[in-house]
Protein backbone atom coordinates (compact mmCIF):
# COMPACT_ATOMS: atom_id res chain seq x y z
CA UNK A 1 0.00 0.00 0.00
CA UNK A 2 0.90 3.61 -0.22
CA UNK A 3 3.54 5.21 1.92
CA UNK A 4 2.66 7.82 4.47
CA UNK A 5 4.50 10.43 2.43
CA UNK A 6 2.18 9.84 -0.51
CA UNK A 7 -0.86 9.94 1.73
CA UNK A 8 0.38 13.16 3.30
CA UNK A 9 0.67 14.73 -0.17
CA UNK A 10 -2.81 13.52 -1.07
CA UNK A 11 -4.09 15.13 2.12
CA UNK A 12 -2.31 18.33 1.19
CA UNK A 13 -3.97 18.29 -2.23
CA UNK A 14 -7.32 17.62 -0.56
CA UNK A 15 -6.89 20.59 1.75
CA UNK A 16 -6.12 22.84 -1.22
CA UNK A 17 -9.09 21.59 -3.24
CA UNK A 18 -11.62 21.43 -0.39
CA UNK A 19 -12.62 25.15 -0.36
CA UNK A 20 -13.37 24.93 -4.10
CA UNK A 21 -15.60 21.89 -3.69
CA UNK A 22 -17.34 22.70 -0.41
CA UNK A 23 -18.40 26.02 1.12
CA UNK A 24 -15.35 27.44 2.89
CA UNK A 25 -16.95 27.23 6.33
CA UNK A 26 -17.80 23.56 5.75
CA UNK A 27 -14.25 22.88 4.63
CA UNK A 28 -12.93 24.53 7.80
CA UNK A 29 -15.29 22.38 9.83
CA UNK A 30 -13.88 19.31 8.09
CA UNK A 31 -10.33 20.24 9.04
CA UNK A 32 -11.21 20.78 12.68
CA UNK A 33 -13.09 17.50 12.99
CA UNK A 34 -10.52 15.76 10.85
CA UNK A 35 -8.01 16.59 13.57
CA UNK A 36 -10.40 15.29 16.21
CA UNK A 37 -10.94 12.01 14.38
CA UNK A 38 -7.24 11.40 13.73
CA UNK A 39 -6.25 12.23 17.31
CA UNK A 40 -9.02 10.08 18.79
CA UNK A 41 -7.74 7.25 16.62
CA UNK A 42 -4.36 7.33 18.39
CA UNK A 43 -6.19 6.08 21.42
CA UNK A 44 -8.93 3.96 19.81
CA UNK A 45 -7.18 2.50 16.77
CA UNK A 46 -3.57 2.40 17.92
CA UNK A 47 -3.88 1.69 21.63
CA UNK A 48 -7.20 -0.15 21.55
CA UNK A 49 -9.00 2.02 24.12
CA UNK A 50 -12.52 2.99 23.04
CA UNK A 51 -13.49 6.28 24.67
CA UNK A 52 -16.97 7.71 24.55
CA UNK A 53 -15.89 10.85 26.34
CA UNK A 54 -13.65 12.77 23.97
CA UNK A 55 -16.20 15.57 23.59
CA UNK A 56 -15.37 16.50 27.21
CA UNK A 57 -11.95 17.70 26.19
CA UNK A 58 -13.08 19.16 22.89
CA UNK A 59 -15.76 21.12 24.78
CA UNK A 60 -13.60 22.23 27.71
CA UNK A 61 -10.97 23.50 25.30
CA UNK A 62 -13.62 25.25 23.20
CA UNK A 63 -15.06 27.03 26.24
CA UNK A 64 -11.63 27.99 27.57
CA UNK A 65 -10.48 29.34 24.24
CA UNK A 66 -13.83 31.07 23.68
CA UNK A 67 -13.64 32.84 27.03
CA UNK A 68 -10.09 34.03 26.39
CA UNK A 69 -11.01 35.28 22.93
CA UNK A 70 -14.09 37.05 24.25
CA UNK A 71 -11.89 38.91 26.71
CA UNK A 72 -10.09 40.18 23.60
CA UNK A 73 -6.81 38.45 24.40
CA UNK A 74 -4.60 37.11 21.61
CA UNK A 75 -5.52 33.89 19.83
CA UNK A 76 -1.99 32.69 20.56
CA UNK A 77 -2.92 32.67 24.23
CA UNK A 78 -6.41 31.29 23.63
CA UNK A 79 -5.13 28.15 21.93
CA UNK A 80 -2.58 27.20 24.64
CA UNK A 81 -5.12 28.05 27.34
CA UNK A 82 -7.65 25.69 25.78
CA UNK A 83 -5.11 22.93 25.19
CA UNK A 84 -3.86 23.16 28.77
CA UNK A 85 -7.37 23.09 30.25
CA UNK A 86 -8.41 20.19 28.03
CA UNK A 87 -5.23 18.25 28.77
CA UNK A 88 -5.49 18.79 32.50
CA UNK A 89 -9.03 17.46 32.43
CA UNK A 90 -7.80 14.52 30.34
CA UNK A 91 -4.96 13.81 32.76
CA UNK A 92 -7.46 13.64 35.61
CA UNK A 93 -10.13 11.64 33.77
CA UNK A 94 -7.54 9.38 32.14
CA UNK A 95 -5.89 8.60 35.46
CA UNK A 96 -9.10 7.04 36.73
CA UNK A 97 -10.26 5.50 33.46
CA UNK A 98 -7.10 3.51 32.68
CA UNK A 99 -7.50 1.65 35.97
CA UNK A 100 -10.26 -0.26 34.20
CA UNK A 101 -10.42 -2.01 30.85
CA UNK A 102 -13.06 -2.92 28.28
CA UNK A 103 -16.64 -2.09 29.05
CA UNK A 104 -15.81 -0.44 32.38
CA UNK A 105 -13.34 1.86 30.70
CA UNK A 106 -15.96 2.94 28.16
CA UNK A 107 -18.55 3.54 30.88
CA UNK A 108 -16.13 5.65 32.90
CA UNK A 109 -15.24 7.91 29.97
CA UNK A 110 -18.94 8.25 29.25
CA UNK A 111 -19.77 9.09 32.87
CA UNK A 112 -17.08 11.78 33.07
CA UNK A 113 -18.39 13.25 29.83
CA UNK A 114 -21.88 13.50 31.32
CA UNK A 115 -20.48 15.13 34.43
CA UNK A 116 -18.69 17.80 32.40
CA UNK A 117 -21.80 18.38 30.31
CA UNK A 118 -23.94 19.10 33.36
CA UNK A 119 -21.24 21.26 34.86
CA UNK A 120 -21.27 23.43 31.76
CA UNK A 121 -25.06 23.28 31.57
CA UNK A 122 -25.66 24.66 35.05
CA UNK A 123 -22.73 27.08 35.22
CA UNK A 124 -24.62 29.67 33.17
CA UNK A 125 -22.66 32.72 34.44
CA UNK A 126 -19.54 31.53 32.71
CA UNK A 127 -20.64 29.19 29.96
CA UNK A 128 -24.01 30.60 29.00
CA UNK A 129 -25.59 27.23 29.82
CA UNK A 130 -28.21 26.14 27.33
CA UNK A 131 -27.76 29.26 25.18
CA UNK A 132 -24.11 28.54 24.53
CA UNK A 133 -21.26 31.01 24.63
CA UNK A 134 -21.82 33.56 21.83
CA UNK A 135 -19.94 36.57 20.50
CA UNK A 136 -16.50 35.04 20.02
CA UNK A 137 -14.35 36.98 17.54
CA UNK A 138 -11.95 35.57 14.99
CA UNK A 139 -8.32 36.72 15.14
CA UNK A 140 -7.66 40.07 13.41
CA UNK A 141 -5.52 38.58 10.69
CA UNK A 142 -8.11 36.02 9.68
CA UNK A 143 -11.53 37.60 9.79
CA UNK A 144 -12.82 36.53 6.38
CA UNK A 145 -13.63 32.87 5.79
CA UNK A 146 -10.82 32.11 3.36
CA UNK A 147 -7.94 33.57 5.36
CA UNK A 148 -9.41 31.84 8.42
CA UNK A 149 -9.43 28.58 6.45
CA UNK A 150 -5.77 29.05 5.59
CA UNK A 151 -4.93 29.76 9.23
CA UNK A 152 -6.69 26.55 10.30
CA UNK A 153 -5.08 24.59 7.45
CA UNK A 154 -1.59 25.58 8.63
CA UNK A 155 -2.37 24.49 12.21
CA UNK A 156 -3.96 21.32 10.84
CA UNK A 157 -0.76 20.29 9.10
CA UNK A 158 1.41 21.07 12.09
CA UNK A 159 -0.79 18.80 14.22
CA UNK A 160 -0.96 16.07 11.60
CA UNK A 161 2.83 16.03 11.26
CA UNK A 162 3.25 15.90 15.04
CA UNK A 163 0.75 13.05 15.41
CA UNK A 164 2.29 11.09 12.56
CA UNK A 165 5.70 11.47 14.19
CA UNK A 166 4.30 10.15 17.47
CA UNK A 167 2.63 7.18 15.81
CA UNK A 168 5.84 6.29 13.96
CA UNK A 169 8.04 6.65 17.07
CA UNK A 170 8.78 3.90 19.58
CA UNK A 171 5.90 5.29 21.63
CA UNK A 172 3.54 4.46 18.75
CA UNK A 173 4.97 0.94 18.70
CA UNK A 174 4.37 0.62 22.45
CA UNK A 175 0.75 1.70 21.89
CA UNK A 176 0.31 -1.00 19.26
CA UNK A 177 1.93 -3.61 21.51
CA UNK A 178 -0.58 -2.72 24.19
CA UNK A 179 -3.45 -3.00 21.73
CA UNK A 180 -2.20 -6.37 20.49
CA UNK A 181 -1.39 -7.96 23.82
CA UNK A 182 -1.41 -5.94 27.05
CA UNK A 183 -0.33 -8.92 29.16
CA UNK A 184 2.76 -9.51 27.08
CA UNK A 185 3.57 -5.79 26.84
CA UNK A 186 3.57 -5.80 30.64
CA UNK A 187 5.78 -8.91 30.72
CA UNK A 188 8.44 -7.41 28.44
CA UNK A 189 8.72 -4.46 30.78
CA UNK A 190 6.18 -1.77 29.91
CA UNK A 191 4.02 -0.20 32.58
CA UNK A 192 0.85 -0.67 30.56
CA UNK A 193 -1.34 1.54 32.71
CA UNK A 194 1.13 4.42 32.48
CA UNK A 195 1.39 4.17 28.69
CA UNK A 196 -2.38 3.95 28.34
CA UNK A 197 -2.56 7.15 30.33
CA UNK A 198 0.01 8.74 28.00
CA UNK A 199 -2.04 7.65 24.99
CA UNK A 200 -5.20 9.04 26.56
CA UNK A 201 -3.52 12.39 27.18
CA UNK A 202 -1.91 12.68 23.76
CA UNK A 203 -5.19 11.92 21.99
CA UNK A 204 -7.08 14.32 24.23
CA UNK A 205 -4.48 17.08 23.91
CA UNK A 206 -4.85 17.11 20.12
CA UNK A 207 -8.62 16.87 20.43
CA UNK A 208 -8.40 19.88 22.75
CA UNK A 209 -6.31 21.69 20.17
CA UNK A 210 -9.07 21.18 17.61
CA UNK A 211 -11.58 22.28 20.25
CA UNK A 212 -9.85 25.63 20.71
CA UNK A 213 -10.31 26.39 17.00
CA UNK A 214 -13.99 25.60 16.87
CA UNK A 215 -15.38 28.75 18.62
CA UNK A 216 -13.65 31.02 16.11
CA UNK A 217 -15.39 29.32 13.19
CA UNK A 218 -18.99 30.01 14.15
CA UNK A 219 -18.39 32.65 16.83
CA UNK A 220 -20.22 30.54 19.41
CA UNK A 221 -19.73 27.45 21.57
CA UNK A 222 -23.10 25.64 21.61
CA UNK A 223 -23.59 23.45 24.66
CA UNK A 224 -24.03 20.34 22.52
CA UNK A 225 -20.33 20.48 21.60
CA UNK A 226 -19.57 18.94 24.98
CA UNK A 227 -22.48 16.48 24.94
CA UNK A 228 -21.62 12.79 24.83
CA UNK A 229 -23.49 12.46 21.53
CA UNK A 230 -20.61 14.45 20.10
CA UNK A 231 -18.21 11.84 21.48
CA UNK A 232 -20.24 9.25 19.60
CA UNK A 233 -19.87 11.29 16.41
CA UNK A 234 -16.10 11.22 16.81
CA UNK A 235 -16.17 7.43 17.02
CA UNK A 236 -18.46 7.29 14.01
CA UNK A 237 -16.01 9.39 12.00
CA UNK A 238 -13.00 7.24 12.76
CA UNK A 239 -14.78 3.91 12.31
CA UNK A 240 -16.36 5.05 9.07
CA UNK A 241 -13.02 6.18 7.71
CA UNK A 242 -11.11 3.21 9.02
CA UNK A 243 -9.27 2.99 12.33
CA UNK A 244 -6.48 0.80 10.95
CA UNK A 245 -4.84 3.64 9.06
CA UNK A 246 -3.46 6.95 10.28
CA UNK A 247 -5.23 8.96 7.57
CA UNK A 248 -8.43 6.88 7.44
CA UNK A 249 -10.36 8.89 10.06
CA UNK A 250 -10.01 12.00 7.87
CA UNK A 251 -12.27 10.38 5.29
CA UNK A 252 -14.80 9.72 8.03
CA UNK A 253 -14.69 13.31 9.25
CA UNK A 254 -15.16 14.70 5.75
CA UNK A 255 -18.03 12.30 5.06
CA UNK A 256 -19.71 13.08 8.36
CA UNK A 257 -19.50 16.87 7.98
CA UNK A 258 -20.62 16.66 4.37
CA UNK A 259 -23.63 14.52 5.25
CA UNK A 260 -24.67 16.62 8.19
CA UNK A 261 -24.40 19.77 6.08
CA UNK A 262 -26.20 18.38 3.07
CA UNK A 263 -28.97 16.28 4.54
CA UNK A 264 -29.79 18.33 7.59
CA UNK A 265 -31.00 21.15 5.30
CA UNK A 266 -33.94 19.29 3.88
CA UNK A 267 -34.35 16.33 6.26
CA UNK A 268 -34.33 17.04 9.98
CA UNK A 269 -34.27 13.29 10.74
CA UNK A 270 -31.03 12.78 8.86
CA UNK A 271 -29.31 11.04 11.80
CA UNK A 272 -31.41 7.99 10.83
CA UNK A 273 -29.31 7.81 7.68
CA UNK A 274 -26.15 8.05 9.77
CA UNK A 275 -27.38 5.19 11.93
CA UNK A 276 -28.01 3.04 8.88
CA UNK A 277 -24.57 3.78 7.47
CA UNK A 278 -22.99 3.06 10.82
CA UNK A 279 -24.69 -0.32 11.00
CA UNK A 280 -23.52 -1.12 7.49
CA UNK A 281 -19.94 -0.21 8.33
CA UNK A 282 -19.86 -2.27 11.50
CA UNK A 283 -21.49 -5.30 9.87
CA UNK A 284 -19.82 -5.43 6.47
CA UNK A 285 -16.88 -3.05 6.41
CA UNK A 286 -14.96 -3.41 9.65
CA UNK A 287 -11.95 -1.53 8.33
CA UNK A 288 -14.05 1.42 7.11
CA UNK A 289 -13.63 3.19 3.80
CA UNK A 290 -9.90 2.50 3.83
CA UNK A 291 -10.51 -1.23 3.84
CA UNK A 292 -13.09 -0.86 1.08
CA UNK A 293 -10.54 0.94 -1.08
CA UNK A 294 -7.91 -1.69 -0.33
CA UNK A 295 -10.27 -4.53 -1.17
CA UNK A 296 -11.27 -2.93 -4.46
CA UNK A 297 -7.64 -2.29 -5.28
CA UNK A 298 -6.73 -5.89 -4.54
CA UNK A 299 -9.72 -7.17 -6.50
CA UNK A 300 -8.66 -5.34 -9.66
CA UNK A 301 -5.04 -6.30 -9.29
CA UNK A 302 -5.95 -9.95 -8.97
CA UNK A 303 -8.28 -9.66 -11.91
CA UNK A 304 -5.41 -8.40 -14.00
CA UNK A 305 -3.65 -11.48 -12.74
CA UNK A 306 -0.36 -9.79 -12.03
CA UNK A 307 -0.35 -9.72 -8.29
CA UNK A 308 0.55 -11.64 -5.27
CA UNK A 309 -1.94 -10.95 -2.44
CA UNK A 310 -1.51 -7.36 -1.26
CA UNK A 311 -0.35 -6.66 2.25
CA UNK A 312 -2.53 -4.62 4.55
CA UNK A 313 -1.09 -1.53 6.13
CA UNK A 314 -0.93 -0.57 9.74
Amino acid at each position, binding site marked *: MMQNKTLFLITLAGVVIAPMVFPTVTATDMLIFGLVAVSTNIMVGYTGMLSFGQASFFGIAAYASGLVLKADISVFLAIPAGVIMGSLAAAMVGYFCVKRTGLYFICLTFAFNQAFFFLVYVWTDVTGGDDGLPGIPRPDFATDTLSFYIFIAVLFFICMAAMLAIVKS*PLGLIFRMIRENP*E*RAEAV*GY*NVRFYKWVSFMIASAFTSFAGTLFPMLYGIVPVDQIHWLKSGDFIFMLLFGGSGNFFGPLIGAVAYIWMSDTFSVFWPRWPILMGAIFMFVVLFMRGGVVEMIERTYRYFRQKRGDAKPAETTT
Partner: protein
Amino acid sequence: MSIILTCMGLAKTYGEEQVVRGVDLDVRAGHIHSVIGPNGAGKSTFFNLISGQVTKTAGTVFFKGEEITDYTPHMLPHIGMSRCFQRTNVFPELTIYENVWGAMFACANDGPMDFLRRPIFSGELKDKAEEVVESVGLSHKLHDKGKTLSHGQSRMLEVAVTLAAQPELVLLDEPTQGLAPEATHEMTELIKRLAGQYTILLIEHKMHIVMEISDVISVLNLGQKIAEGKPADIQNNQMVQDAYLGRLRDDND
Protein backbone atom coordinates in the same frame (compact mmCIF):
# COMPACT_ATOMS: atom_id res chain seq x y z
CA MET B 1 28.44 -20.56 41.83
CA SER B 2 26.23 -18.00 43.43
CA ILE B 3 22.49 -18.20 43.89
CA ILE B 4 20.59 -15.84 41.61
CA LEU B 5 16.98 -16.60 42.56
CA THR B 6 15.59 -17.67 45.91
CA CYS B 7 11.97 -18.56 46.59
CA MET B 8 10.89 -19.14 50.17
CA GLY B 9 7.56 -20.66 51.09
CA LEU B 10 5.75 -19.57 47.94
CA ALA B 11 2.08 -20.41 48.19
CA LYS B 12 -1.13 -19.76 46.30
CA THR B 13 -4.63 -20.58 47.43
CA TYR B 14 -7.73 -20.21 45.29
CA GLY B 15 -10.68 -20.38 47.67
CA GLU B 16 -10.36 -23.82 49.27
CA GLU B 17 -7.87 -25.14 46.80
CA GLN B 18 -4.16 -24.93 47.61
CA VAL B 19 -2.46 -24.89 44.23
CA VAL B 20 1.06 -24.17 45.45
CA ARG B 21 1.87 -25.10 49.06
CA GLY B 22 4.98 -23.44 50.31
CA VAL B 23 7.67 -24.16 47.75
CA ASP B 24 11.33 -23.33 48.46
CA LEU B 25 13.65 -23.10 45.51
CA ASP B 26 17.21 -21.87 44.88
CA VAL B 27 18.46 -21.30 41.36
CA ARG B 28 22.22 -21.09 40.83
CA ALA B 29 23.62 -18.65 38.30
CA GLY B 30 24.52 -20.35 35.03
CA HIS B 31 22.40 -23.44 35.62
CA ILE B 32 19.56 -24.88 33.62
CA HIS B 33 17.15 -25.60 36.42
CA SER B 34 14.10 -27.59 35.38
CA VAL B 35 10.80 -27.82 37.19
CA ILE B 36 8.84 -30.95 36.38
CA GLY B 37 5.71 -32.57 37.68
CA PRO B 38 2.44 -34.12 36.51
CA ASN B 39 -0.33 -31.97 35.06
CA GLY B 40 -1.93 -29.84 37.74
CA ALA B 41 1.14 -30.00 39.97
CA GLY B 42 1.18 -26.18 40.09
CA LYS B 43 4.22 -25.57 37.91
CA SER B 44 2.78 -22.75 35.83
CA THR B 45 1.21 -21.12 38.87
CA PHE B 46 4.58 -21.33 40.57
CA PHE B 47 6.11 -19.46 37.61
CA ASN B 48 3.34 -16.90 37.70
CA LEU B 49 4.02 -16.32 41.39
CA ILE B 50 7.70 -15.64 40.73
CA SER B 51 7.01 -13.27 37.84
CA GLY B 52 4.16 -11.49 39.60
CA GLN B 53 1.40 -12.43 37.14
CA VAL B 54 -0.47 -13.98 40.07
CA THR B 55 -0.56 -12.42 43.54
CA LYS B 56 1.10 -14.45 46.26
CA THR B 57 -0.87 -15.89 49.15
CA ALA B 58 2.39 -16.29 51.07
CA GLY B 59 6.12 -16.46 50.56
CA THR B 60 9.00 -14.27 49.46
CA VAL B 61 11.19 -14.06 46.37
CA PHE B 62 14.75 -12.74 46.17
CA PHE B 63 16.51 -12.00 42.90
CA LYS B 64 20.24 -11.18 43.03
CA GLY B 65 19.90 -10.47 46.72
CA GLU B 66 17.05 -8.02 46.26
CA GLU B 67 13.57 -8.79 47.55
CA ILE B 68 11.15 -8.74 44.60
CA THR B 69 8.11 -10.30 46.28
CA ASP B 70 5.82 -7.35 45.54
CA TYR B 71 7.20 -6.38 42.15
CA THR B 72 4.64 -6.09 39.35
CA PRO B 73 5.40 -7.94 36.09
CA HIS B 74 6.63 -4.92 34.15
CA MET B 75 9.42 -4.23 36.66
CA LEU B 76 11.15 -7.58 36.32
CA PRO B 77 12.70 -7.27 32.85
CA HIS B 78 14.37 -4.07 34.02
CA ILE B 79 16.28 -5.88 36.74
CA GLY B 80 17.23 -8.83 34.53
CA MET B 81 14.46 -11.40 34.72
CA SER B 82 12.34 -12.22 31.69
CA ARG B 83 9.78 -14.91 31.00
CA CYS B 84 7.94 -16.61 28.19
CA PHE B 85 4.48 -18.08 28.31
CA GLN B 86 3.06 -21.55 27.95
CA ARG B 87 0.47 -20.42 25.47
CA THR B 88 2.07 -18.53 22.60
CA ASN B 89 1.71 -14.93 23.52
CA VAL B 90 3.27 -12.50 21.06
CA PHE B 91 2.04 -9.50 19.11
CA PRO B 92 0.21 -10.92 16.05
CA GLU B 93 -0.28 -7.71 14.03
CA LEU B 94 3.32 -6.55 14.46
CA THR B 95 6.24 -7.77 12.39
CA ILE B 96 8.82 -10.14 13.87
CA TYR B 97 11.26 -7.25 13.96
CA GLU B 98 8.77 -5.00 15.77
CA ASN B 99 7.98 -7.78 18.24
CA VAL B 100 11.61 -8.09 19.24
CA TRP B 101 12.62 -4.44 18.92
CA GLY B 102 9.60 -3.38 20.99
CA ALA B 103 10.46 -5.85 23.72
CA MET B 104 14.09 -4.75 23.65
CA PHE B 105 13.25 -1.07 23.84
CA ALA B 106 11.37 -1.58 27.13
CA CYS B 107 14.65 -2.00 28.95
CA ALA B 108 16.78 0.23 26.73
CA ASN B 109 14.48 3.22 27.18
CA ASP B 110 16.80 5.98 28.11
CA GLY B 111 15.43 9.18 29.55
CA PRO B 112 11.83 10.45 29.57
CA MET B 113 11.61 11.60 25.94
CA ASP B 114 13.56 8.73 24.41
CA PHE B 115 10.37 7.05 23.27
CA LEU B 116 9.74 9.91 20.85
CA ARG B 117 13.26 10.34 19.54
CA ARG B 118 14.80 6.89 19.15
CA PRO B 119 14.72 5.65 15.53
CA ILE B 120 13.15 2.21 15.19
CA PHE B 121 14.90 1.05 12.04
CA SER B 122 18.51 2.09 12.66
CA GLY B 123 21.11 2.25 15.38
CA GLU B 124 22.51 -0.08 17.97
CA LEU B 125 19.20 -1.63 19.00
CA LYS B 126 18.46 -2.59 15.40
CA ASP B 127 21.61 -4.72 15.26
CA LYS B 128 20.85 -6.33 18.59
CA ALA B 129 17.24 -7.05 17.60
CA GLU B 130 18.31 -8.64 14.33
CA GLU B 131 20.88 -10.67 16.22
CA VAL B 132 18.21 -12.03 18.55
CA VAL B 133 15.91 -12.85 15.62
CA GLU B 134 18.76 -14.62 13.93
CA SER B 135 19.63 -16.62 17.03
CA VAL B 136 16.19 -18.25 16.91
CA GLY B 137 16.42 -18.76 13.14
CA LEU B 138 13.69 -16.39 11.97
CA SER B 139 15.78 -13.92 9.96
CA HIS B 140 14.01 -14.81 6.72
CA LYS B 141 10.70 -13.73 8.31
CA LEU B 142 12.04 -10.48 9.77
CA HIS B 143 9.39 -8.16 8.30
CA ASP B 144 6.46 -10.56 8.27
CA LYS B 145 3.66 -10.21 10.78
CA GLY B 146 3.61 -12.39 13.87
CA LYS B 147 0.34 -14.02 12.85
CA THR B 148 1.88 -15.40 9.65
CA LEU B 149 4.20 -17.74 11.56
CA SER B 150 3.65 -21.45 11.99
CA HIS B 151 3.21 -22.77 15.51
CA GLY B 152 6.83 -23.84 15.77
CA GLN B 153 8.05 -20.47 14.54
CA SER B 154 5.74 -18.69 16.98
CA ARG B 155 7.32 -20.62 19.83
CA MET B 156 10.72 -19.47 18.60
CA LEU B 157 9.49 -15.88 18.42
CA GLU B 158 8.13 -16.30 21.94
CA VAL B 159 11.65 -17.14 23.10
CA ALA B 160 13.12 -14.28 21.04
CA VAL B 161 10.78 -11.75 22.65
CA THR B 162 11.78 -13.11 26.04
CA LEU B 163 15.49 -12.81 25.28
CA ALA B 164 15.08 -9.30 23.86
CA ALA B 165 15.23 -7.81 27.34
CA GLN B 166 18.82 -9.15 27.60
CA PRO B 167 18.04 -10.81 30.92
CA GLU B 168 20.27 -12.77 33.25
CA LEU B 169 17.54 -15.18 34.29
CA VAL B 170 15.08 -16.57 31.76
CA LEU B 171 11.88 -18.34 32.77
CA LEU B 172 10.74 -20.69 30.01
CA ASP B 173 7.30 -22.19 30.42
CA GLU B 174 7.10 -25.32 28.26
CA PRO B 175 8.88 -23.99 25.20
CA THR B 176 8.41 -27.24 23.29
CA GLN B 177 4.70 -27.57 23.92
CA GLY B 178 2.81 -28.78 20.87
CA LEU B 179 5.91 -28.91 18.71
CA ALA B 180 6.62 -31.58 16.10
CA PRO B 181 9.73 -33.74 16.77
CA GLU B 182 11.87 -31.76 14.33
CA ALA B 183 10.93 -28.41 15.90
CA THR B 184 11.35 -29.87 19.37
CA HIS B 185 14.88 -30.79 18.46
CA GLU B 186 15.59 -27.26 17.21
CA MET B 187 14.20 -25.77 20.41
CA THR B 188 16.31 -28.11 22.53
CA GLU B 189 19.41 -27.11 20.62
CA LEU B 190 18.48 -23.47 21.10
CA ILE B 191 18.10 -23.90 24.85
CA LYS B 192 21.49 -25.63 25.00
CA ARG B 193 23.06 -22.68 23.18
CA LEU B 194 21.37 -20.23 25.52
CA ALA B 195 22.69 -22.10 28.54
CA GLY B 196 26.09 -20.50 28.19
CA GLN B 197 24.75 -16.95 28.35
CA TYR B 198 21.75 -17.14 30.64
CA THR B 199 20.50 -18.81 33.75
CA ILE B 200 17.40 -20.75 32.76
CA LEU B 201 14.47 -21.84 34.85
CA LEU B 202 12.53 -24.26 32.72
CA ILE B 203 9.19 -26.01 32.88
CA GLU B 204 9.18 -28.98 30.55
CA HIS B 205 7.09 -32.09 30.04
CA LYS B 206 9.26 -34.05 27.66
CA MET B 207 11.40 -36.20 29.95
CA HIS B 208 14.26 -37.02 27.59
CA ILE B 209 14.88 -33.28 27.06
CA VAL B 210 14.81 -32.49 30.76
CA MET B 211 17.19 -35.34 31.55
CA GLU B 212 19.50 -34.31 28.73
CA ILE B 213 19.91 -30.61 29.35
CA SER B 214 19.23 -29.91 33.04
CA ASP B 215 21.81 -29.22 35.70
CA VAL B 216 19.27 -29.45 38.49
CA ILE B 217 15.72 -30.76 38.50
CA SER B 218 13.00 -29.94 41.01
CA VAL B 219 9.90 -32.09 41.08
CA LEU B 220 6.54 -30.64 42.05
CA ASN B 221 3.55 -32.77 42.94
CA LEU B 222 0.24 -31.48 44.27
CA GLY B 223 1.78 -28.06 44.83
CA GLN B 224 4.73 -29.32 46.88
CA LYS B 225 8.34 -29.88 46.04
CA ILE B 226 8.90 -33.61 46.55
CA ALA B 227 12.44 -33.94 45.25
CA GLU B 228 15.40 -32.04 43.91
CA GLY B 229 18.73 -33.04 42.50
CA LYS B 230 20.81 -33.97 39.48
CA PRO B 231 19.03 -35.72 36.60
CA ALA B 232 20.48 -39.12 37.54
CA ASP B 233 19.31 -38.81 41.17
CA ILE B 234 15.83 -37.79 40.08
CA GLN B 235 15.56 -40.72 37.69
CA ASN B 236 16.37 -43.12 40.50
CA ASN B 237 14.22 -41.46 43.16
CA GLN B 238 11.40 -43.82 44.17
CA MET B 239 9.00 -41.05 45.21
CA VAL B 240 9.40 -39.29 41.91
CA GLN B 241 8.82 -42.46 39.97
CA ASP B 242 5.64 -43.12 41.89
CA ALA B 243 4.32 -39.63 41.43
CA TYR B 244 5.34 -38.97 37.93
CA LEU B 245 7.92 -40.69 35.86
CA GLY B 246 6.45 -44.14 35.53
CA ARG B 247 3.12 -42.77 34.58
CA LEU B 248 4.58 -40.37 32.09
CA ARG B 249 6.65 -43.01 30.39
CA ASP B 250 3.52 -45.00 29.77
CA ASP B 251 1.72 -41.96 28.43
CA ASN B 252 4.11 -40.15 26.16
CA ASP B 253 7.55 -41.45 25.78
